[in-house]
């Protein structure tokens, strides 16, 4: 099952857990299952249309999912999903 790394701002919703193992064959399913287990996480990640919020960056296998298939990005056993807030310039 994929592992989702939880950033600090969301850990109050995951009982402080920094990583959560969630079932799901694609990102959309994983986010739904994450929401089911830790209510509130999903609405922080997704907007009213069910798409990833503007300021949320999600990486699968170290790649921004916007370069993959977005929420339809397929996940394999052992994949890591990173949720990373946007960062200022450098």
């Amino acid at each position, binding site marked *: 099952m994929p592992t989702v*790394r939880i*950033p*600090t*701002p*969301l850990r*109050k919703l995951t009982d402080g857990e*920094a990583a959560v193992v969630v079932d799901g064959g694609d990102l959309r399913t994983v986010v739904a299952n994450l929401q089911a287990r830790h209510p509130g996480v999903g609405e*922080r*990640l997704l907007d009213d249309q069910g798409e990833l*919020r*503007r*300021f*949320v*960056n999600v*990486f699968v296998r*170290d790649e*921004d999912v*916007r*370069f993959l298939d977005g929420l339809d990005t397929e996940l394999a056993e052992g994949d890591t999903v*990173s949720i*990373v*807030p*946007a*960062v*200022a*310039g*450098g």
Partner: protein
Amino acid sequence: MSLDLATERRHRVAAAPDHHTRDPALPDPTEPLAVNVTGLRCRECGEAEELGLNHVCGFCFGPLEIAYDTTAIAGRVSRARIEAGPRSLWRYGDLLPTLSADPAHRVDLGTGLSPLRPAPRLAGHLGLDELWLKDDTRNPTGSFKDRVVTIALSAARALGVTTLACASTGNLANSVAAHGAAIGLPTYVFIPHDLERGKVVGSAIYGANVIAVEGAYDDVNRLASEVADTHGWGFVNVNLRAYYAEGSKSIGFEIAEQLGWQLPDHVVAPLASGSMYTKIDKAFTELAHYGLIDGEVATRMSGAQATGCSPISEAFGRGSLDVWPQRADTIARSLAIGNPADGYYALQVAERTGGAVSDVGDDEVVEGIRLLARTEGIFAETAGGVTVANLVKLVRDGVIEPGERTVAVISGNGYKTIEAVADHAGPTHTIAPSLEALHAALDR
């Protein structure tokens, strides 16, 4: 200027009548800076957060920004108070985040109040009536990043941060390394492994830990975000971002003061994350809000990118506020952010002010650097080349009108990126050490 002269000048200016605000109840213009922030606030949903090492709204994931005590600021700030202040960006301290009244928390390597130079030869070349250059090549580490770092590190000190860090395309790393050394804190700078040599040396020389990451800047950024989460370090552009970003407002404050408390008609600034560009616009708005300039803000803001990394320009061309990330491939490494955090806000500014966002190819960037150097004697790094080349394009395309009083922001020093122009700038004559050889060479 000696300290005595500076003090005397301050008193003389302070004693002069203030034509702008005459209320005798106002505090003495030379009174020290006071705390002027009440907390952090989400830019998207308005949710309040406490001051601290935090940059993300816990409710909607939007970016946090500074919540100011605007009533207190309105009661203190005046043109006279600014003009009586230090010859650095701290003269605008009332309008920048001040978390502590203790002057020992304030970091100041003399950043800011860089020259705003008239550029008649470049203006003539372009066909503009009036062009000014905000020459930020002149800051302590040679770029505008000294402004944001000054503010971020002052906040870090007030918050009790003991280790500093940043993710950088080079200029920020140079600045964090220098300032970290000057205040004696351990510093970690994360950079792409293949940066220009001047930017690597220009960080390592200060004794910083330079972490060269095998990836592009956007990979560095992501790693930094995760390190900030696990190590508790003060990352100036991650968990200190709200404070950091405000430092760029000082460019806008200075432009207005240096134009005699007037705003220009048009500003052209480089866009990487889009933060600096949006903060110049914010500065103009704040100056109007506090009555420091006369009238409304009508400055058009235009942004400059390199085609090889132009996600904001691409979205502008599409007429959209949705920025699609790109994989950067340009010599303008300091602007090579494929996933710009403030792109959405930069596009809003361009749209609201009637400006434009455009991009130019790497060949034009090199030509921009050469044109600026040959017409105005300023050697800019690649970001300056991007700005000048886009200025050329915007004038040519009629976006900037000849009669507009225009300011171009030159954000970094060319000695950092000599690789970009090394093939175009070398000895014009190589001769034996004799007059005959010189004459022969010049006659050829």
